[in-house]
């Protein structure tokens, strides 16, 4: 168990560095095992240095930088052990337009082997989707789901939505 964990840790650590550089374009990040003699107990530390900035505590990073760093950790884990599908609930909320774009490129690349279900309020994200569902509460407190095509009329009938998706 100890060597399996260490092995996984090293792989995820390497993935994290690479994903971080892709999402931030500049700068570097690392995953540190504080107490190497004790892998199953040791504290784990994330260090991240975006752009040309000087390395500093992760608490000093901005809201958006922290979110993008956490997203890098996530994709680093997926590279090691992909989940067949993945729900991302408003992960793009704190990101600026350029960062949303890079996040979506990564979702697209990983999307070849993982089905992503992305919950969002962001227009850029909606436009990048293969399929779009709208959740509504016509009757207050009671949820319904409709299939949506951006720019098209909403499809009111759920059976039709299912058939149109699964052919």
């Amino acid at each position: 168990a100890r060597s399996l964990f260490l092995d996984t840790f090293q792989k995820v650590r390497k993935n994290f560095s690479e994903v971080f550089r892709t999402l931030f374009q500049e700068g570097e990040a690392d995953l540190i095992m504080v107490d190497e003699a004790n892998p199953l107990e040791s504290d784990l530390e994330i260090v991240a240095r975006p752009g040309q900035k000087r390395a500093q505590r992760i608490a000093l990073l901005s809201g958006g930088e922290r979110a993008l760093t956490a997203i890098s950790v996530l994709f680093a884990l997926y590279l090691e052990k992909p989940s067949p599908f993945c729900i991302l609930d408003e992960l793009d909320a704190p990101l600026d337009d350029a960062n949303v774009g890079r996040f979506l490129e990564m979702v697209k690349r990983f999307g070849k082997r993982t089905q992503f279900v992305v919950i969002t309020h962001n227009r850029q994200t909606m436009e990048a989707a293969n399929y779009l569902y709208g959740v509504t509460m016509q009757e207050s407190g009671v949820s319904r789901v409709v299939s949506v095509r951006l720019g098209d009329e909403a499809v009111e009938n759920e059976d039709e939505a299912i058939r149109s998706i699964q052919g």
Partner: protein
Amino acid sequence: MFLKRIELFGFKSFMNKITVAFGEGTTCVIGPNGCGKSNISDAIRWVLGEQNPRLLRGETMDDIIFNGTRTRRPLGMAEVSLVLSNDTHAFPIDYAEIKVTRRVYRSGLSEYLINKNPCRLKDIRNLLMDTGLGSSAYTVMERSMTDQLLGNTSTNLRIMLEEAA
């Protein structure tokens, strides 16, 4: 192996039976605040075996049963089904489609089914385990995970690494 659809009935704000189908690629879910989007991700967490009501924003497990509105009575049961394709035979059972169902009643009674055959929660977990769905540690990701992952206590990161190992 891919996700085909999810069926919700009586789960949180889904009073009526709702089916959401998924295709290849990325599905986006949109809608106004409070309309039920995160309730769908809660439903997926729950049907994958989440036992901690706090991770579903509730205090007790029956917080997830539709509890009525000013004009609608509460329901007595919540049910969520997850339907997965077995095209790659990732599941060691002889079905083309795998349907995993979880039900809970107000009494606290729970029911679990795999393709309509009653079973226990651990049977569902074991079935899903090898395909990477064994827990929702990183299958369902939401905004609050940023602080948890980057926080001082590295427990969350450790849990996810163990998940990946």
